[in-house]
């Protein structure tokens, strides 16, 4: 399984997705260093903000928790498709998802 990450310079990268590991970790592990992810996935920093551009096969993402929502919608770069990549665990439903890394707040 794999997915596509567009970095801040507009370049799209295809990344191998490891099941059970968050999108944030998968992106970092691929050597893409644009996510600081300072809180290590504990919904406290929003430095792992991405946009979900396209989800294949009409799959649906698990809804954001209230804390995730609060962190995101206060960002200057909040969009309707904003998510914290540390909260999305990679698996079949995210296979071939396309995401873009949000600008740094």
């Amino acid at each position: 399984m794999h997915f596509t990450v567009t970095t801040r310079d507009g370049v799209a990268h295809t990344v191998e997705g490891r099941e059970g590991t968050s999108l944030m970790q998968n992106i970092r592990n691929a050597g893409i260093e644009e996510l600081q992810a300072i809180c290590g996935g504990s919904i406290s920093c929003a430095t792992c903000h991405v946009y979900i551009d396209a989800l294949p096969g009409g799959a649906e993402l698990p809804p954001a928790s209230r804390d995730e929502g609060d962190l995101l919608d206060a960002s200057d770069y909040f969009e309707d498709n904003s998510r914290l990549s540390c909260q999305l665990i990679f698996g079949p439903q995210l296979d071939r998802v396309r995401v873009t890394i949000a600008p740094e707040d």
Partner: protein
Amino acid sequence: MTSAHSTIEHFDCLVVGGGHAGAETVIALRQAGFEGGIGLLGDEPVPPYERPALSKDYLAGKQDFERLLLRPSEFWTKHGVTLRLGRRGEAVDPEARTVTCDDHTTIGYGVLVWAAGGRPRALTCPGNDLDGVRTLRNKADCDRLIAVLPRSHHLAVIGGGYIGLEAAAVLRELGKEVTIIETLDRVLARVAAEPVSRFFEAEHRSRGVDLRLGTGVTEILGREGAVSGVRLTDDTVIRADQVIVGIGIEPAIQPLLRAGAEVASGGTGVLVDDLCRTTLADVYCVGDCAVMRSGPGVRIESRQNASEQARTAGKAISGHPQPLRLVPWFWSHQYDLRLQTIGLSLGHDQTVLRSDPGGRGFSLFYLKNGAVIALDCINATRDYVQGRKLVEAGAHIDPALLSDVRTPLKEIAAATA
């Protein structure tokens, strides 16, 4: 042929300390295009991992170690980083540009980055060496504690700082009897104002923690070499089969100190400029053991500081210096409570409470001469995100407005921008 004197390895950049600051320095170096050889020397036997989880999900058994690794093991080799784990750097020779290790090997460097963090401060009272007196700084500490939990029912936590409180929360949720002992008259006294302390005290008490404030420890009591209790200054004896000591750290800076690096008064850390350079040529210092000259004169012990200083050093070493202006932030999790804090409350002369009576949490502003210098938010993520601009700007805002929960902080920030 190797002898104790021969330099067996040389790295263009040697990083001592495989924690957050060390790992992020290496990552930042490669990001910034540094092409030389990099060595990462760490005394823990494992690659760099998320330390904050040790008093949270990892202790609770909710997260396995693999997931805590900052990068998968193969990442380092792939990026041309030589990990030298389970080995401690003991002496620095700034003239010869070498580091001598505890196994008597010597490693040469072009540039040295000292990122050794700190060691937990130890108890000094009688009984401090009994089996069961422990600290919580690294994976090994945490694994040893986890291993004894099934047969431990009474745990005493000495020190009401973040780590002690977080550990206490996890242990309560695991059904243990927990006592927290704090010498000062409130928890978090060094980092937060009274309303925040009182809130956390009430939460811990309501969950069954026995909280003893304004009490010291005179002795750890034992039976057959193992902990059986704690004697307090008022002579009360608390039953305990494990004692977790969380009373702060001592910076791991001896080798740099002996090498002649200038340190902050009292030896609280290695002094660095805003590029994280020490007073020794080509020697940088980052993370928990560094004190920035331009800052408040104290160590900032946080994941964010480690990360920002590491990025600063990495860029400077690669020839892209960018001076650091840090606005510190920090988080803590206890039970279902999330604390997020931004700025340093040190030296504040006024606090302003912002509390929604029907809400789950509240925020506390810290002001100095009328300017917002820090903000603590408890279950108030929105205030944290929106309020950080006020802290960053050192904004002067009417306290009545700050405390008015009907006015979102976003609006206040926009009006002052």
